[in-house]
């Protein structure tokens, strides 16, 4: 197995991974740091085909596992059932952000032949309760700010939406850079899009 020292990772990307990992451990808007790490660990267990093993409420365990391994199976009725079972939209959106970044980072490490990054220790503290007052129901399954759009997908929880945007830039392109078809990093833009498109096709993601 390769080690992290053997691979030259761009400084902005390395910093992004470090910051994201620290963010997972801190209290969010609805979940404590320990609960966010439990969500991440549950997502990891699901990907490793291990049985559930957290103290999370049942709907949170179910959501963490399905979103980690088979997001294309998500349906509006499934989200509505989670909400009816006690996982409110706000908690669901934050959980989705945590699972998304956990899977992203784990995939990155695995792709480079690196061992999975150990989850950090939780940071003590209570959830902030910061929820957007501007979010409204729309065509998507959860309320969003300013209409239904991928850049606003997690805007019900402003801190999660901001974290998604921060993570997105070093991993791929910032939302602003995306309008530049000639931008290049280690790959040309068309090469990046081949990778992105194939990933989305294998995940059966229409969007």
């Amino acid at each position: 197995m390769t080690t992290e020292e053997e691979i030259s990772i761009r400084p902005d990307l390395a910093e992004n991974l470090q910051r994201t990992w620290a963010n997972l451990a801190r209290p969010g808007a609805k979940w404590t740091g320990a609960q966010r790490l439990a969500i991440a660990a549950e997502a990891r267990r699901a990907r490793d085909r291990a049985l559930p093993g957290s103290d999370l409420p049942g709907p949170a365990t179910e959501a963490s596992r399905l979103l980690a391994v088979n997001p294309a199976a998500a349906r509006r009725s499934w989200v509505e059932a989670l909400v009816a079972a006690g996982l409110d939209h706000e908690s669901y959106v934050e959980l989705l952000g945590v699972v998304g970044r956990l899977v992203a980072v784990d995939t990155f490490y695995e792709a480079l032949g690196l061992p999975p990054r150990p989850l950090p220790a939780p940071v003590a503290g209570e959830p902030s309760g910061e929820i957007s007052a501007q979010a409204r129901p729309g065509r998507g399954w959860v309320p969003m700010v300013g209409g239904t759009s991928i850049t606003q997908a997690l805007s019900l929880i402003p801190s999660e939406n901001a974290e998604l945007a921060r993570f997105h830039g070093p991993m791929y392109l910032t939302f602003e850079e995306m309008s530049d078809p000639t931008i290049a990093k280690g790959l040309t833009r068309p090469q990046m899009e081949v990778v992105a498109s194939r990933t989305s096709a294998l995940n059966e993601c229409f969007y």
Partner: protein
Amino acid sequence: MLSWSSKINQIPINVRAITDSSIDPVIPGGVALLRFVDAVLARSAVDISAAVTVVMAELGQAGLVDAAAVIGNFQMMNRVADGTGMPVGAGSRRRHADLIDQLGLDRFDHTDEA
């Protein structure tokens, strides 16, 4: 994004390669990148190792790291889109109707299903 960026960069590409593994996407390193994505999503350590060697040889370490990062990012974005029922707008559907049809992408659209 794929057909748009390849057109602007005047890099020919066969977009059908995205959903058909028997087709060469034509762009430099394209086959190596597709094999790499396949191996990573399948989580096959043996296939990943083999694909890494080819991507390194064709695109260098910077290319390899960026490819891994892009895969990771879209693992996240696919989950966010699917988990929030993100619809594709009518305008975007119209603009990309040929591509959606060519690649059979409609089969992935579950946003209107209960």
